[in-house]
């Protein structure tokens, strides 16, 4: 299995605070990796670094063998890294379809002149993009909400739209930041079912998750971060047995 995402020796300092201290992770093609750790362990920071939102203090990020550490986040998106955010982030005043449409733009050149005139070719392109957007929403089971403004939708629908937007870029690697957070048990099961079936067929996934049960059930691998260091990298089943992991969580009931 080839390594599609490689994180080599990533460190991140914020002033005097070390958020990440030399993290190495290799993600193989088609894997579903769970990134876990107590609050403040550095999970979101790592995501931000992989996605290019913040630069690392040291280390490298390689995508399919190519060093993308110096690339701006929009360039990385064009190379195949997509992500969702811990706080639901959407284009609030737009409909679900328009949100996904924004994500599709990277697949077509801007073609401003044709757009200004409104050539038939341009309009056909637009229609095709809209159809693709709708299909993506259908894929995640929220096709009926396509014309609704996202800011007025409940959290469950919003989270699915954020995933659709990220998927629109047709990423190689998809970073999901706590996809189940804030959702009811039923909604988060639905989300994870989608992630582990439909979505994982399309790309490699790394997800941040607090809920150990979800990680054990759905992920191929679990990576545990603690105070910016990797303390476990392997089978999710082995999590409860590993002493370091247990110590890190120190009596948190969720471990069962």
């Amino acid at each position: 299995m080839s390594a599609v995402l490689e994180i080599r020796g990533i460190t991140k300092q914020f002033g005097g605070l070390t958020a990440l201290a030399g993290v190495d992770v290799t993600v193989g093609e088609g894997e579903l990796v769970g990134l876990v750790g107590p609050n403040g362990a550095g999970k979101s920071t790592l995501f931000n670094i992989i996605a290019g939102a913040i630069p690392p203090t040291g280390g490298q990020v390689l995508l399919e063998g190519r060093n993308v550490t110096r690339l701006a986040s929009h360039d990385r998106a064009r190379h195949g890294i997509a992500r969702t955010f811990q706080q639901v982030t959407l284009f609030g005043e737009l409909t679900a379809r328009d949100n996904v449409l924004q994500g599709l733009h990277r697949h077509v050149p801007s073609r401003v002149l044709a757009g200004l005139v409104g050539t038939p070719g341009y309009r056909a392109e637009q229609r095709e993009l809209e159809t693709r957007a709708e299909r993506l929403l259908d894929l995640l089971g929220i096709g009926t909400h396509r014309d609704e403004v996202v800011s007025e939708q409940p959290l469950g629908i919003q989270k699915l739209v954020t995933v659709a937007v990220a998927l629109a870029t047709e990423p190689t690697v998809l970073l999901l930041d706590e996809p189940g957070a804030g959702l009811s048990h039923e909604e988060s099961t639905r989300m994870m079912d989608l992630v582990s079936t439909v979505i994982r067929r399309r790309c490699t996934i790394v997800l941040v998750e607090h809920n150990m049960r979800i990680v054990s059930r759905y992920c191929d691998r679990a990576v545990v971060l603690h105070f910016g260091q990797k303390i476990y990298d392997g089978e999710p089943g082995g999590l409860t047995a590993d002493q370091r992991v247990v110590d890190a969580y120190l009596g948190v009931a969720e471990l069962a």
Partner: protein
Amino acid sequence: MKTAALVLLLLALVALPPLAEPYMLHVAIVVLMNAVYAEALYVIMRMGYLSFGHAGYIAVGAYTSALLATKLGMSVWLGFLAGGTAAALLAWLLGMVTLKLRGIYFSLSVFAFAEVVNAVFRAFDFFGGPAGIAGVPRPMFFGVRLNTHLGFYYVVLGAAVISLGFLYRLAATRFGFTLLALRTRDTEGLAESVGIDAARYKTLAFVVSCFFCGLMGAIHGHYLRFVSPFVFTFFFSTDLVIFNMAGGLGSFWGPLAGSVLLTALGEQLFAAGYYKSLVYAVVLLVVILALPGGLIQLPRLREAWAARRLRWAKQPVATTER
């Protein structure tokens, strides 16, 4: 249906003027100019940038063309383009720096820019100082200098139709659509994460916006036949913002409606400048408080009110910059 109405309007705008008296033509000219200014501003307001300094770019356009015509005797038509280009160039240079700021910081920086521009024009004799530059010529058209209101009206109409047409289509293209994704710092981050180069889009939008301001500003200067630091002031910038807000920011038609209605109204109140400002300000406040969505939403007022009532619940005291 809509196209038929537009074609009819266009025909009227072309065919009727020879029958009108000069004052009516003056009003029409001012309405057309303000419509272009308002729609040019709208380009950047769509992406969440509030500018209280657009008059500065308009002034740059006006002065550039005026200087080229009076000092170098250059063709006025070229002067128009030069005005637009000068404003666009300045926008590109300053945009690189100011577009990184958001919210009130951006607004203040553009405002400061406009004040600096006017201060520079006032301070140096090259620009005519506080008196400005007089004797700015009208363009020549096949050997005839367009000194009449009617003649110049067609110049303004032509420029306005082209500009408004371009700006309308721009909003309708993917480019315009992408600008909607850049409204706040958060959505900008989201846009970047799906591959949109936010900085490039913002700069391009800003340059386009200022180009049309400069272009129309140049035309404005040649219409008045003089330019001075007291024409394109902070109050002018504020008027443009009022046209946008009062008209409604939901679509291209909002600023157009706002600028046409308020300019026509303003010309009626031409008598005392301060009455005009008062009326504009009151209309603005009424629209903001009672007509969410602007004047253009008047037909759908009830829905807008209901939607707003939903949003009123549990708002925090601190309003963070969007």
